[in-house]
């Protein structure tokens, strides 16, 4: 079942409700894609769960005009989006599944509204990406500056060519399903700001406030995070468990959907 929703928040974040069930799973995409990133995961849950999907402002089919530089200059602004969505849909004590930066956004949403989630799943999380003395986040400040330059290069027009070429690909039967209209399309200027906010965030202090059961799903070979980072989260939270996947990369829900589905089902 897919409902077309109305309401400012629901339109702003292109919220979609899929599946049937009394328990609710809220999936939050990470940097670089939109709700379509969950397409390999959803079928495994839609029979028994109500699934909430959404796009952050600036990604997918969200309302780009709702982008407010002041609101989204920290992860708290994105966390407020999640609180808004749950408020609009009268949701509480649901299970949150966040990929990459959305893990910490979910943590911040929980801090804003403690009753919002009963369980939380982190996929490839990191409370701090930048390396510091005594902490290995994975990237140096110089890497971040260069990354923003690469994003700028792809902002000049090349990346904008990606979406149309994909839209014209008749080889993809998924397009006919009506589930998606855009494919990981992001506004380049907003994406760049999102990257800056993401990589400069530091949520290590927030970990201590996490009291509900949490699961970290981590790949063996992840360029952006690592087992050491997953362990850091585990050591600084209560009631956290880690499931390591054999697959590599930062997006196991794409490269190893079965592994991710199994891990989530075991936890929830």
């Amino acid at each position, binding site marked *: 079942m897919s409902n077309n929703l109305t309401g400012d928040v629901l339109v702003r974040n292109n919220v979609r409700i899929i599946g049937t069930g009394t328990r609710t799973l809220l999936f939050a995409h990470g940097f*670089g894609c939109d709700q379509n990133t969950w397409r390999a995961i959803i079928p495994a849950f839609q029979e028994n769960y109500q699934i909430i999907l959404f796009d952050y402002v600036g990604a997918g089919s969200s309302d780009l005009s709702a982008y407010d530089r002041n609101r989204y200059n920290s992860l708290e602004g994105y966390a407020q989006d999640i609180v808004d969505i749950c408020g609009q849909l009268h949701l509480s004590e649901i299970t949150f599944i966040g990929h990459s930066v959305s893990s910490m956004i979910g943590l911040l949403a929980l801090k804003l509204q403690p009753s919002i989630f009963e369980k939380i799943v982190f996929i490839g999380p990191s409370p701090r990406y930048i390396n510091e003395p005594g902490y290995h986040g994975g990237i140096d400040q110089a890497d971040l500056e260069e990354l923003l330059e690469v994003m700028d290069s792809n902002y000049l027009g090349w990346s904008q060519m990606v979406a149309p070429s994909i839209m014209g690909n008749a080889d993809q039967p998924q397009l006919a399903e009506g589930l998606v209209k855009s494919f*990981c399309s992001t506004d380049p200027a907003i994406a760049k700001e999102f990257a800056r906010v993401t990589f400069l965030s530091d949520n290590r202090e927030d970990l201590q406030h996490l009291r509900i059961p949490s699961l970290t799903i981590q790949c063996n070979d992840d360029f952006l995070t690592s087992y050491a980072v997953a362990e850091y989260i585990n050591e600084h939270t209560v009631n956290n468990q880690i499931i390591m996947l054999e697959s590599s990369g930062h997006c196991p829900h*794409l*490269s190893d959907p079965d592994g991710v589905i199994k891990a989530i089902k075991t936890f929830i």
Partner: protein
Amino acid sequence: MKTDQVERYLQKDFLYDELLCGFVSFSPDGKILSINKTMATWLDTDLADLKERNFKTLMTKSSMLYYNMVVAQLLHVNQSVNEISLKFLAKDGFFDVLLNAQSYKNDQGDVFLINATIQKISERKRYENELLYEKRHAETERRKFEFLFNAAPNHIWTTDPEGKILTINQRVKDYFNLEQPTDPFGLMGIWPADLKKYLNRWKLCLSTGKIFERHIRLLGVSGSPEWFLIRAEPFYNDEGAIEMWFCSGTNINKQKLLELATQADLKSSLSSAYKTLDENEELFVSIAMNHSHMVRKPLANILGLVKLMEMENVNGDLKTLMELLLESTQELDSMIKKLNH
């Protein structure tokens, strides 16, 4: 006619290796399955060594981050990417490329192969960097202007050559409590009593390009009209035509009200002074008349007495003194008569 050499050059293996672009096939985790000679030459690495490497490790760290965060997801979800700008490592630094790639999925929907072409774009990149620098510079300047535009204490807005409002700054938005101009020419914000003189002058300026400068009352959310110094100056483009008008409004309400009050006071003071002068003059004339009357009465007596004394037989020095006394008395009488007139 094809020679043996041409035949050799047209063989697929030869073409693959000698392609004018790099060609790499790799598995989703990045393991290189096949790579052509062109790419190996650009990377300045042995072809055999490259087949043991991970495709992602051929890039700079920042490009590898971008590839993993954005490109890898696109290849999973959409199966192709076009013209992605990345940097690849070389022995003497790095080189810029554009990457096109296509992924292939098995029956289970899992990606099992990615084919990528890599086009070296060092020269083009140099030009692109220049464009990027200019774009960044322009963006910085735009943001500075926007900051100034909104931070200035004055009302600032722009219009097109016909006077239609294009942009308004935060002060205008706050003063009239609006996000965008609801009235295209901004006339609703002008106090009705000043509208005519504003329009007459503004139309003249729009048609002649003369600078507009007037004291006008505006009516904002406060509900009370306030005086503003409105100034508008035309901005000419390179062709010499008016492209837009830059307008400003400075709140001069206090000064203007003070000025108007001072003018009223001055007028009142001048009237009062004239009245006092008139009254004083009247009084002076009256005093002069009274005094003349009072002085002339004894003087007339003195004249009469001197003339009686002349009738007596007086000689010598006494006679001379009598004549002098009469002369002085007549002179004094004449002077008092003049004063009365």
